């Protein structure tokens, strides 16, 4: 049986939501950072277009994820 006071439950829920938000931001940021560094390396090395395209697609996908998280935050703020 959950005997925690409502304010404690609310704080715990807030912490969990914050943790999920941080994870949703940090994960694509990690991918962005890593892929940009790999892309720079691949371009300097003169790698083929396929390899460079793989990096660019991953960068694009990470930006789409970040955009979705920002839009979700904006919606939550307005509701």
């Amino acid at each position, binding site marked *: 049986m959950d005997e925690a006071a409502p304010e404690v439950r609310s704080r715990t829920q807030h912490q969990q939501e914050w943790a*999920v938000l941080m994870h949703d931001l940090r994960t694509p940021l990690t991918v962005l950072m890593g892929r940009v560094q790999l892309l720079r390396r691949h371009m300097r090395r003169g790698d083929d277009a396929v390899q460079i395209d793989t990096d660019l697609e991953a960068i694009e996908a990470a930006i789409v994820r970040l955009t979705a998280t920002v839009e979700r935050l904006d919606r939550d703020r307005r509701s």
Partner: protein
Amino acid sequence: MPSGSSLIPSSLSPPSLDGHRSHILAINNDSAVLALFRDLLEEAGYQVSTQTYVDRDLTQIKALKPDLIVLDYMWANEDASWSLLQMLRMDPATASIPIVLCTGAVHEVKALQEHLVAMGVTVVLKPFNIDQLVDAIRERLGADRALRSIDMEG
């Protein structure tokens, strides 16, 4: 230009001094992060396997017998990652596998720092420079080889 051997194409990367190509297992729940780890570590000359948190039992890890595990610690899924870490350390078959923990959960990892040091876990904070991660892996693998060599001599 960044320093180090990371600019060497993967096909030319030296496996290791003893000719053994180290096998790295990357564990995370995100396919984009796993793809990044695979590309990065294969370029650095390692054999790479990836696994998601869905397969949390150790059977697959024991079968793969990796030389090192890169575990991505997620605060949003703290219980899963922490229990996996403990399971890895408690099972004799996996207890001695070096672990590099990648995490963005700076505060949480600081609170667990003593436990992590006692477990012999190296921490790399996110977002990381890719050379930092590769350096941490090389360092851990080097230390592990040195330790095993001392054990064999002793």
